[in-house]
């Protein structure tokens, strides 16, 4: 009888472990963005480089594209930049959203490190960022040719993330296009 009691902690432990294992598959920081499946919010801002007025209507491109939130003050953006350059050379269109930044610093940065962006939207007071629900830079959105947001990634997009989260969706969106 006594021996049975001694096994009890082990059984309890196994049960808890199974739940912990299951729990690993869940990601508590994965908060589905309310904007997925919706159009990009309306905005009217300037571009970073040549100060042209640009609105949400202007970025309805003929192709799906990435909207990348970046800033010179963002350390992680430096790490991400090389990957963006590489994606751009593969012909993927990337629109930048320069978030709460200084125009001169931002242009210097692009001169130094290369410009992967078709153009960058200059969002100095973060209004578009607010509408998008940006947590912080970097963030990357995949937008289809109708301007609908299809995927959102908070944090750096590296090769691993690109392959696992973006590529397939991107190619299928691009396929619909043709």
């Amino acid at each position, binding site marked *: 009888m006594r*021996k049975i009691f001694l096994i009890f902690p082990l059984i309890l432990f196994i049960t808890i472990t199974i739940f912990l294992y299951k729990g690993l598959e869940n990601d508590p*920081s994965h908060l589905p963005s309310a904007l997925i499946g919706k159009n990009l919010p309306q905005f009217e801002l300037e571009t970073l480089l040549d100060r042209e007025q640009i609105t949400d209507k202007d970025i309805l491109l003929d192709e799906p594209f990435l909207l990348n939130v970046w800033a010179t003050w963002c350390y992680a953006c430096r790490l991400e930049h090389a990957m963006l350059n590489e994606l751009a050379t593969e012909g993927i269109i990337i629109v930048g959203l320069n978030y709460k930044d200084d125009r001169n610093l931002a242009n210097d940065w692009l001169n130094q490190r290369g410009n992967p962006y078709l153009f960058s939207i200059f969002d100095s007071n973060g209004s578009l960022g607010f509408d998008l629900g940006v947590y912080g830079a970097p963030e990357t959105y995949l937008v289809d040719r109708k301007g609908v947001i299809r995927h959102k990634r908070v944090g750096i997009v590296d090769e691993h993330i690109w392959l696992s989260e973006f590529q397939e969706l991107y190619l299928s969106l691009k396929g619909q296009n043709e």
Partner: protein
Amino acid sequence: MIAEIGQLSLILALCTCALMLFIPILSIQFQNESWLRLSAPLALNQLFFACFSFVCLSLCFVFDDFSVKYVAQNSNSLLPLIYKVSAVWGAHEGSLLLWIFVLSGWTAAVAFLGANITVKFRSHVLSVLAAVSISFLLFLILTSNPFDRILPIAPEDGGDLNPLLQDFGLIVHPPLLYMGYVGLAVPFAFAVALLFSERYEKVKMSWCRPWINVSWAFLTAGITLGSWWAYYELGWGGWWFWDPVENASLMPWLVATALMHSASVSEKKGTVVSWTILLAILAFSLSLLGTFLVRSGILTSVHAFASDPERGIFLLIIFIVLVGSSLFLFALKGHHLVSKPASKGWTREFFIIMNNMLLVSITTIILIGTLYPLLSDILNLGKISVGPPYFDFFFVPTTIAIAVFMGMSVSSRWNNGNFDESLQRVVLPGFASIALGLVTVVVIDFTSSSYDFSWQALITIMVASWIVLTLCEDIVAKIRSDKLKILKNKSYLGMTLAHTGLALLILGVGLSNSYSVQSDLLMSPGKRANVAGYDFLFKELIKSDGPNYQSRKGIFEVSYNDRDQGVLIPEKRSYFSGRDIMTEAGIRTNILKDIYVSLGESVDSDSWSVRLYVKPMVRFIWIGGFLIACGGILASLNRRNVKVSSLNS
């Protein structure tokens, strides 16, 4: 180069541990007991390598070697030197290295301070500790290597240390907490070694007890400090949030508290042995579980650490191997540890075991509360979190019950427990504490206009005085019956100190909850506000920039009935890299009362949201915690082994 040497040093530590693990087996293999003497020098070796590796990582930080990824992520050239050093354990990889360094320290301490332990048993204990070290060294080297480089192009400057962590609190809080967390590995190792030996002797428990006390004391100090840190740094004016990470440290503490008491029963009376062993295993399991919950990122919390599924799996494997195998061993061999049947009657043992049950129950409730969001997520009940109301609902009544039994156990005997006698002894303290509670609350109500009668305060004062008065009664009784000798006993003094500390802690929690007055306002420079009779004048807002941040400081002049109470300077910092915002509260304190101002957000050009607090007795929480920790240390210094070791020979 330094990074590579540090890395190599880690691998050497791993090899040392592997050897230490197999020492008992080698000694059996070669039929030569002198092998067992090797364990202690090996433990020292391990400490050397772990320490060396830790120093290497610190040097990488000091010399701004941003080619090391971990350094680049957590430090930059503007960071003051002291934070560069403390940044070593500011994130995942480095704090794991600290974990291992501390564990090596404990292992070496057991090897050299445990000189009274028989060589064979000590070698077994060290072997178990080596197994724990190996698991974590592998984890560190394989999944979270702090010495990884960013090659070929190193960034010219680093990111930044989380600003929340740029504080004195960071320098001391994690190491203390780790001393406690990891220290629980020692009782765990004793428990497993005891299970292997298949025979219980009281002397083995007496070897183990000081280690339980010391690691418990460190854990207490770490939790206390963390709570103090949260109070002045997070800017919310709270000191405990029932956050998963806080719970992760509270659960092992509660079980270790139970363990400490049941170990005293097992040593003195030779009873409840398997229960004590189980508690030793559970206490360390819970600190492993805590590490897992915090480091796998399986739960969200204010401590928001980066999550990585690969690390999570690895930690889970460590958890399964260490805890699973020890519980398996317990199921298999626990029945060998035959102890005497528990004593009958209203003995001290009875009350201690009652409190043990309560401590384990409340731990279970906290565990359920902490894991519930996870469970509901897995079972598709939606993402929910369990808040303070749940924890308070269970925790408060349990604490009261524990306090009542605590007084009873102090007033009862180890042998021949007689209910009438115990009752006789507690009548006076009992009535006195009820009277004291009523009188104090009435006095508070009459002397101040703003306070209302509070049940919470009444019960708090009654419970706290019950704890103290039963202790006083016991001391008086000891003096009367000429047992003065026991008053020189460090174990007894430590108990008295820790129990008094708990009484103060309860007072602090209960009274600051009942009598705090809080006000959230919009204020601009030049404006006044009145909270609980205190007049706050927001005099001006000044800019003052630090080496790596911009800051705004509010200057608040406080007065009470036109008497000047000094100036409070709450601060809001914005760090250059990352643009994080940080709040530092302005606190004016005397022991009985805290006046607390924290700056919120600037609403327009010159008005700010401001939080004003008057919190009585809140200091007692940390003073109490500090006394509890001191009590634990004091008790561990007791020279209890003299009598028992003669039994052993």
